[in-house]
């Protein structure tokens, strides 16, 4: 975007310069021996990129490790690039996808920045995230209004205050924060808006959120927001949306596997690289998460 000559404010000028300079970032195209710097030969629609002079430990400069070694080996760039979306497709409740996502988030937070968890379901449990390495002092939890339909009749009594029998309710709407303000019937727009705003913020390193049905337009906005902010978006989504189009740069399918090692208390997961932008997809790994130590190890790795 050209810098307008009539821009009056110095602060805005500096910000615009910084933003434009940030666009020049190292990028690899998978070609070996990338020691030369060269200007891209692409058409005018593509961004200008400089090829990195060196590679460090097999991972390109700027790519962040997830901290899960088998997962890093599965990813073509050996990690996750800032400014991208990663979609974690999970098969039902209790699948383990969230555990992997938050473990990766704890490593993505190490360079700095805040972690934003968009929890419209109001079920995010901080003690578990703390044990997965998430720094709660740098965590912001956003709870957009949620209307969802679940099982049977409405509960009675205070939430979580007694040990009495509670039943799932048919329809539960979170009350508006003031009777003066318009109550929101649908929280989907608030959820996507909160995700977009959080991804767009340069001070946010990781955004984690649970999403459901999302159209192509809003999904593209999330991808652009991640690119603008420079953080990483980890979106947890039911696997039934696997066949729908996605603007995520990486799509991983997490399936729980029954039974662990004979003497371990861990759980097993299968992770498949469904899609990776600009790279060959495919490849499956089977992981085992040790409950005692939290270490994730791979049982079997087959490249795609």
């Amino acid at each position, binding site marked *: 975007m050209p810098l307008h000559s009539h821009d009056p404010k110095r*602060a805005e000028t*500096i910000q615009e310069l*910084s933003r434009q300079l940030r666009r020049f970032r190292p990028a690899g195209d998978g070609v070996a021996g990338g020691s030369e710097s060269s200007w891209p030969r692409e058409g005018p629609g593509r961004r200008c990129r400089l090829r990195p002079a060196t590679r460090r430990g097999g991972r390109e400069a700027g790519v962040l490790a997830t901290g899960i070694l088998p997962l890093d080996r599965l990813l073509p760039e050996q990690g996750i690039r800032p400014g991208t979306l990663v979609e974690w497709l*999970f098969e*039902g*409740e*209790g699948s*383990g996808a*969230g*555990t992997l996502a*938050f473990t990766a988030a704890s490593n993505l937070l190490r360079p*700095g920045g805040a972690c934003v968890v968009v929890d419209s379901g*109001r*079920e*995010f*449990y*901080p*003690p*578990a*995230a*703390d*044990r*997965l390495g998430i720094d*709660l*002092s740098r*965590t*912001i*939890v*956003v*709870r*957009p*209004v949620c209307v969802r339909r*679940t*099982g049977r009749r409405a509960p009675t009594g205070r*939430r*979580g205050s007694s*040990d009495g*029998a509670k*039943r*799932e309710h048919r329809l539960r709407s979170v009350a508006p*924060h003031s009777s003066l*303000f*318009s109550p929101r019937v649908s929280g989907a727009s*608030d959820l996507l*808006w909160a995700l977009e*705003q*959080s991804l767009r*913020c*340069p*001070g*946010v*390193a990781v955004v984690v959120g649970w999403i459901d049905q999302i159209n192509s337009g809003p999904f593209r906005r999330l991808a652009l927001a991640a690119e603008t902010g420079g953080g990483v978006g980890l979106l947890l989504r039911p696997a039934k949306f696997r066949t729908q189009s996605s603007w995520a740069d990486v799509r991983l399918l997490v*399936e729980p*596997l029954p*039974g*662990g090692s004979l003497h371990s208390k861990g*759980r097993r997961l299968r992770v498949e690289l469904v899609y990776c932008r600009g790279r060959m997809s495919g490849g499956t790994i089977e992981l085992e*998460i040790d*409950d005692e*130590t939290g270490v994730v190890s791979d049982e079997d790795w087959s490249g795609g």
Partner: protein
Amino acid sequence: MKRVLCLTKIGVVDEWSDGKGATTSSHYAITPVLQHSNTPVLHRLWCQRYSPVVGLEEFGVPDSLLLDVTGCAHLFGGEGGLARQVAADFRLRGLSVRGAMADTIGAAWALAHYGRREAGRPEIIVVPAGEHAEFLRPLPVKALRLPAGVVETLEKLDVRRIGQLLSLPRDGLLSRLGPEVLQRLDQALGRRAEWIVPERPPAPVEARWSFEHPISHRQTIEAVLQRLVGRIVDQLASRGEGVQSLRVHLTGPQGEQVRFSVGMLRPSASEAHVGELLLTRLGQLRFFSPESRVQSRERRVEMSNDEIPMTKSAPIDIRPSTFVISRLSIRATATALLKSRQEELFETETDRDSRPELGLLIDRLSSQLGEKRVLRPYLYPDAQPERASRWQPLIGKVGRTGKKEGEKGSPALFRPLRLKSEPCAIKVTAAAQSTGPGAPPVRFSWRNRDYTVIRCWGPERIETGWWRGRHVRRDYYRVETETGRHFWLFRRIREGDWFLHGEFE
């Protein structure tokens, strides 16, 4: 006769227990409040309810308030009543205080700082009118607010009490120690005038706009609001302050009012940012006018025959454009000093945590979704899983969150990432063969689906204390189903029924 009340040793009392359930021993720490001249602190101390003239002492580092209570005591039932009321008000708000009331500033200051207090005596000493000289005699010379060097010289001369100083010839004091000793003596005894420099409350920062005719045009209202925000920001810019919370009043032609507030994480001097937050809140308003209330009554009568009426208080939603406004006003309810920040062309990674954009994001999220929906989580040492974490809004009233120490001793991953806000009742169709009543589940059904448990960890017994009233006694199990999913179930020990509490997602 002039009467002065000096209040000192004002501090916040922090009390905590030793963590053994009911408080068996308490610890106190007093954090001084008046470390520097801070007008907002003064007014938060509500001292102008006792006297219209309230000031800070001007000796050394100010740690005392001076109140001119001449002619005010009868409003509190006398000077004793005033002293008791002051002490009680401070105690009610968790503040400690010591003080003295006398005829002069010097005497009140000296007795507040150095007057002897015995156990059971009130925190504020009241010296009868005209008797301050006798009360001053036994006090140390440093109670006269003398410089340290002069006090040291007097102590070398073995002059340690004010009474000794009074018996010395004045000419000698002047020639040996300078004029300050005599000045302070005369001020304490009332022979020389001394005044309290009163602190004035800052003028409220507000901006108003009145329309010649009531309007309902949304864009015009927004433009006027933006202009008023600009005036507020300009008023504060001259002080080097930014606005941290605003209150907006929209008044209709018949006096009906709509009010809303906007808060920010950090003080802001950006007209664009504050305006954006205001307009976001404005867009969420439901406007009511007398016409709409008349319409709603009429409609309820029509609906009673054929339709199920809405609840009594349910209004008809009127489009904002039909609400007419005759006056707009914005007031800055909280301001703070702005911090300067060096602009960097290239940010470093360590700068990311302190970026101002994060504050703007929090402001935007809170304004759009509500301050209670943008939260910071805290761990809390409670056995009951629902209470093991607390939430605090990032903007707005900050309540107590309790200790920040979390649970200890639990295995690393034995807490689910998603915890149901209310445990879901499940039906256990088969339990393991066990001699005890707490057999782990083998098959259960939830949400019309059946699950078979192939592995199980537990039980983990969680009980809360009897002093809580409704205490819980649960045996928790982590189960793995035949499809590899992990859930957190519990059985209520007394009732024997089962619930699903969380998912190890």
